[in-house]
């Protein structure tokens, strides 16, 4: 027993920075195990902030920041955190980083701070963040946990950015606030009011899931 344990430790020490296993940790959440489309987590903010690309991008960056740093700290503290209060400890760590993001946005990106309003604060309740802390960071080393958090954050980010892209183009005829259809001389482009409502996000999200599952062949277990 002691021997195998030691072997594992030495094996891990020599593991390259981006070994196959670590690549899998990062890449899996992008597609095969995507937090939004496969695990169906973090839907609330995916619906709420995705009407325009700019706030969506800031939201994606905020979530990425919060996930990476709370995973790092949870992982560093994983042997000290008492099991009985681990959830509230994770929550405290996440909440601290979320408040930090909120304060920084307030100081240096006041307009976006106001546009995102409550949804930055609601990162605290984003199941993806806490899910990764509980499922991964509590039992893995800091570097691996950061990679895992980064992967999940990217999996979340690319989906909400894709949804925001379609919603802004179809709903407002714009990309990052730039009037796309006016620029190409199609100013009568019929914008779709449905796309700016959460219903539009459901439809886009559903289509993305459809395409994705057709390609990966993923089927829900019954």
């Amino acid at each position, binding site marked *: 027993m002691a021997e195998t344990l030691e072997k594992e430790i030495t094996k891990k020490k020599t593991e390259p920075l981006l070994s196959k296993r670590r690549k899998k940790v990062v890449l899996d959440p992008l597609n095969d195990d995507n937090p939004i489309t496969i695990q169906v987590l973090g839907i609330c903010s995916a619906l*709420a*902030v*995705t*009407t*325009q690309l700019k*706030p969506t991008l800031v939201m994606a960056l905020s979530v990425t920041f919060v996930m990476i740093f709370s995973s790092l700290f949870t992982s560093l503290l994983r042997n*000290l*955190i*008492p*099991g*009985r*209060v681990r959830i*509230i*400890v994770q929550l*405290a*760590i996440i909440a*601290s980083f979320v*408040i*930090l993001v909120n*304060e*920084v946005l*307030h*100081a*240096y990106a*006041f*307009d976006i701070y*106001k*546009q*995102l*309003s*409550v*949804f930055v604060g609601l990162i605290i309740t984003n199941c993806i963040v806490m899910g990764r802390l509980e499922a991964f960071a509590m039992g893995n080393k800091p570097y691996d946990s950061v990679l895992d958090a980064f992967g999940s954050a990217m999996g979340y980010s690319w989906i909400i950015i894709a949804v925001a892209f379609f*919603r802004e183009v179809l*709903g407002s005829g714009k990309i990052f606030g730039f009037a796309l259809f006016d620029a190409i001389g199609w100013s009568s482009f019929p914008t779709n*009011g449905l796309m*700016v*409502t959460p219903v539009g996000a459901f439809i886009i999200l559903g289509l993305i899931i459809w395409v994705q599952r057709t390609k990966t062949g993923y089927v829900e277990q019954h």
Partner: protein
Amino acid sequence: MQRSNTYVIIFSLVLSIILGGLLSLASAGLKPAQMKAEEFAHKRQILRAVLDTDMLDDIVSVYDNQISSFVVDAQGQIIETDEKGNKIIAEDIDIGKEFKKDPGERFYPIYTYRTQENPDDIEAYIFAAYGNGLWNNIWGFIALETDMNTISGVVFDHVGETAGLGARITEKELQARYKGKKMFDANGNLESVNMLKGENNRPESLDEHHVNGISGATLTANGVNKMIIEYINYYQPFIAKYKKENAGVASL
């Protein structure tokens, strides 16, 4: 591994103190930048009622040169000091705090705008407004031309309306819909300007007192409608006095 209760309590305490301390530090350290951002946003917002601020390089200096301000009470009297004798500055008035007071006891700031080309005559009067949106407070500034009837511009903002829906009241395109609309009807009664339900209303329904609303955010639009009529009504004593004083000039 089961830890002792003492360990759990000490761990929680230490973690709370560390995280709390870090957050207080961050909050205190970022405070000046936040205040500056807020002051800048406030001045820019008032200017937005009359100017396209995206075209301006130095918003603060334009504000300082072309905007002057004063405060009136509910009777339309200009007041300079509060009951304790402190000077009242319009920019320092927290309209949100005033909103919580009884309308009769509130301070109402008024900002006057002069163009760069003609610094002698007032071009527009900017009135503040505050109200309730769907989720949280909304506010705005309404600029009226010197006839105290024609809207030369409006600007709206909010605390927590839904991004992409109610939050669209901050969009320039939406605010531009109010330009040129009239506050009062032909008999001088306050009619206000209301957002209709939905975005694609027939042109004939968009008369002097109506503009297109926001699809999916009718409740926010209702809040905006209520806010405008309420606040212009609060400013009515001042407006009436102004109209009386300028009646001779206006008829020329």
